[in-house]
Each structure stands twice: as C-alpha cells, then as structure tokens.
C-alpha cells in the first residue's frame, strides 16, 4: 500500500504539520502528532483547521448562526467566537492525523 497515495489527495496543496500542545487532545490529536493539512479544501462546519491567530494553531471550527467558533477539544481552553468566517485566516484544513500510539 502506498501511503502517499492513500493519505495525500492533492500533493501540491498538502503540507505535514507537527502539533505542539494538548489543546486538541479530545479530537485524538496529541502533542507531537503530525497532521496532514490540505490547503485546497474548503473549511466546513466541524472541520479541524490550521488557523492563523498570531501564530499557526489547530482548532475545531463549528459554524453556527451566531458566528464561527474556534473550539479547542480540551476544556482548559475557552472558545473564541468570531463573527464571520471571512475574518479568519484559515491556513488549511486537516485531513488526517498521524497519531503516535
């Protein structure tokens, strides 16, 4: 099995990002894991995105009637509410997590 073919749908737009921190533990993304981020994907409600917030951070992206939430999958980190998706700089959408077991 060719993992490149299996994991990467669009090599031109895909980057591997190493995660630091525990803010996405609840989504199975742990410190030191690698994410396969596809910049060509449109962020949808519930996507896990790499977003620019001073630096690159990884957050869940619930899109609600009240606005867009940057939601950490860890209760220690509060939600950040953003009025509109256009106000965020979404760097890319995480397609896969390479988790260390």
């Amino acid at each position, binding site marked *: 099995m060719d993992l490149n073919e299996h994991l990467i749908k669009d090599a031109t737009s895909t980057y591997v990002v190493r995660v630091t921190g525990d803010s996405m533990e609840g989504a199975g993304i742990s410190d030191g894991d690698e994410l396969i981020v596809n*910049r060509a994907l449109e962020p949808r409600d519930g996507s896990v995105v790499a977003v620019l917030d*001073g630096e690159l951070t990884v957050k869940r992206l619930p899109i609600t009637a009240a606005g867009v939430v940057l939601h950490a999958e860890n209760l220690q980190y509060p939600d950040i509410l953003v009025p509109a998706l256009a106000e965020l700089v979404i760097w890319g959408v995480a397609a896969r997590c390479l988790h260390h077991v």
Partner: protein
Amino acid sequence: MQEIAHVDVNCFYASAERAFNPKLEGRPVIVLSNNDGCAVTRSPEAKALGIGLGDPWFKLAPRAKEWGLVALSSNCELYGDISARVMELLGRYSAWLEVYSIDEALLGVRGSPKHLLDLGRTIREACRRHIGMPVRTMGCASCFRIISAECPKSSPHLCGTATILTYQRGPDTSTGLPLWRAER
C-alpha cells in the same frame, strides 16, 4: 491569438519563509546567499529600508537589531519544493508551460483581454490559497521579448495584481517597441 503570460512570485525566498512562519509577516525579511554572504531576497519592508540586492551581510548586521531586520540563511530545499508546487499549480491553467526560473513561468494562454485578466486573478488567488505564495504580476503579450521589456514589474501600484498588456497603436518612438497599455 495565442499569447504568452508571464507569472512570477513576489520576493520568492522571503515569501516561502513567510508561508511557514507567519510571525515574519509585516517585518523586514532578507534571505542570505550561501554562507550568509549577501542579501539575495528582500521583502518589500526590507527594500523600503534601502537594503539593496546583493548587499553584504557584514554591512547590514550592525544595524539589523535597530531595524528589526530578520535575516535568514537560505533553505534551498524549501524553495525547490515550493517552486515545484507553484509550477504544478500553474500547469493546471495551460497545456503549454515553460518553467523560466525558480519563481517565474511562461504560460500559453488564449482569450479576450477580460478573460485573461480573470485568468490572472484566478491564478493569483489559487497560488495564494493553495500554496500561500503571492504571485506578483502577470503580463500577457504575443512574444516574450515584449513581456520582458514592457511588463511593469517595478511599478508598485501593479504589484500583486494581474496585469494584461494590450496592444494600443504603433511603436513607441523612444524604444521602437510596440506600445502596450496596462489594464487593471
């Protein structure tokens, strides 16, 4: 009529570094040549400080802190990888692509000036979104000699926009070259 579009990436090495380090956004950034000899790429902020292409690092270093200048050693593997991505993406928009340098390509294109302008914008947006690279100007002309002579590369108001050069009338008396008018 088949035309040739010229696409290049704005301060390529500095932009490639910025794509992976957002903290460099808005700061003067230079990328140094082998062995950190001299500045080979300058971000617009670094150009505004008066740093010239090829300025030796030992002359810049004493003032770097005062300027808040970020000087990076070149990371050629990164630039090669990003370049390959840009070229692959550009290849989606034309069956004829000539990779002209690490950050420049020529594409065979067809269509009305409006169509070409739209195509330029589409390419610019795709490069920005898919790879995080700012494509600077795109000029179209019937031969590359005209593009290289007439493309308003250095005019700041056209930087980062798609530019279509359309034939106006007669040759320019000063250069003997056909006169081209830049349309936004």
